[in-house]
């Protein structure tokens, strides 16, 4: 009799939990309900009485309490970059190669519609390389072909008057620029992702990193002072001599 009551209490509890958890994203709802079922399986033996079962359910807390906690814990983590963010970064960088200009524009739209990045990061992502690497590549290509000609090569070859576009030169220029741009463009992307994958580790210790920076700055200042004073004393010695 009591065993059946225990089973019933647990079933009612889980039914209530499923009802309250309906608003959660599916994956989270499944995991949470699985966790609670597992807990109840461990906490309440099959032959438990009604009183023992009630005690265990009380220790667990009400379904509303658990789901409220889930919603609180869910917030910032949902903003941890997912496929959407990776696609946005990919489009920002190389979208211009796939579909000139438009690919990058879609990347910008995705960047701004994501909740992962701050406005500052979004501005950096948008303005650092307008048009993305693809755009930059095309710009360099256009500028390279229009401004650079094969004057040098032509002159050496004995055709000083002949000015023709030098694809090799432009290509080299584009390649040179591309290397620079890539190094520059990688910074905000990796920064943004770095920031979102581990928000607790990084956001939790702003004081510390600030202090570290201060300490480093102080150390630099001390070193500079030391250098300065030694220089001064050398100068003074020289004057004395």
């Amino acid at each position, binding site marked *: 009799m009591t065993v059946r009551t225990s089973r019933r209490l647990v079933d009612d509890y889980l039914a209530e939990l499923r009802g309250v958890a309906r608003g959660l994203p599916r994956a989270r709802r499944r995991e949470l309900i699985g966790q609670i079922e*597992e807990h109840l399986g461990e906490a309440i033996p099959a032959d438990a009485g009604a009183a023992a079962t009630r005690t265990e359910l009380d220790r667990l*807390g009400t379904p509303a309490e*658990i789901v409220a906690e889930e919603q609180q814990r869910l917030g910032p983590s949902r903003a*941890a970059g997912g496929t959407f963010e990776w696609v946005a970064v990919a489009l920002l960088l190389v979208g211009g190669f796939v579909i000139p200009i438009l690919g990058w524009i879609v990347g910008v739209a995705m960047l701004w519609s994501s909740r992962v990045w701050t406005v500052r990061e979004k501005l950096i992502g948008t303005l650092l390389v307008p048009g993305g690497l693809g755009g930059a590549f095309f710009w360099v290509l256009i500028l390279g072909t229009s401004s650079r000609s094969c004057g040098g090569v032509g002159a050496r070859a004995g055709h000083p008057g002949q000015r023709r576009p030098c694809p090799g030169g432009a290509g080299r220029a584009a390649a040179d620029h591309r290397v620079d741009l890539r190094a520059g463009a990688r910074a905000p992307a990796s920064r943004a992702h770095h920031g979102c994958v581990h*928000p607790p580790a990084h956001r939790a*210790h702003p004081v510390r990193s600030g202090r570290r920076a201060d300490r480093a700055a102080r150390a630099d200042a001390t070193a500079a002072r030391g250098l300065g004073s030694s220089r001064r004393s050398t100068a003074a010695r020289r004057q004395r001599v």
Partner: protein
Amino acid sequence: MAAVRGDSVAQLRRGVVEYCVLALLRDGERYGFELVRMLSELDGLVTSEGTIYPLLGRLRRDDAVATTWRESASGPPRRYYRLTPQGRAALEQFTVEWERFRDGVDHVLNRRSNT
């Protein structure tokens, strides 16, 4: 004022308890129920056991812990949690911060009670 104080204690607890979970996993993996029981045995750390599970899910999504299913001798399989290198690094960082924080707070509180 009382309500605000209660809320900030809840926030403090919420922030600290996740590192307590990581600390309990420092020496090896544990299953959910085991973790929850260990935490709830500690006075004042957990209000209701069920609220630990959302935290465990969160830590898993943040790659601070990883989970594995294992068969248990007595009943259905258990979800075991273990520390990832990221989780271990976060725990180490927190331990340093916590010691400073605790000493600072103790210092202020004790000075107030002495004067």
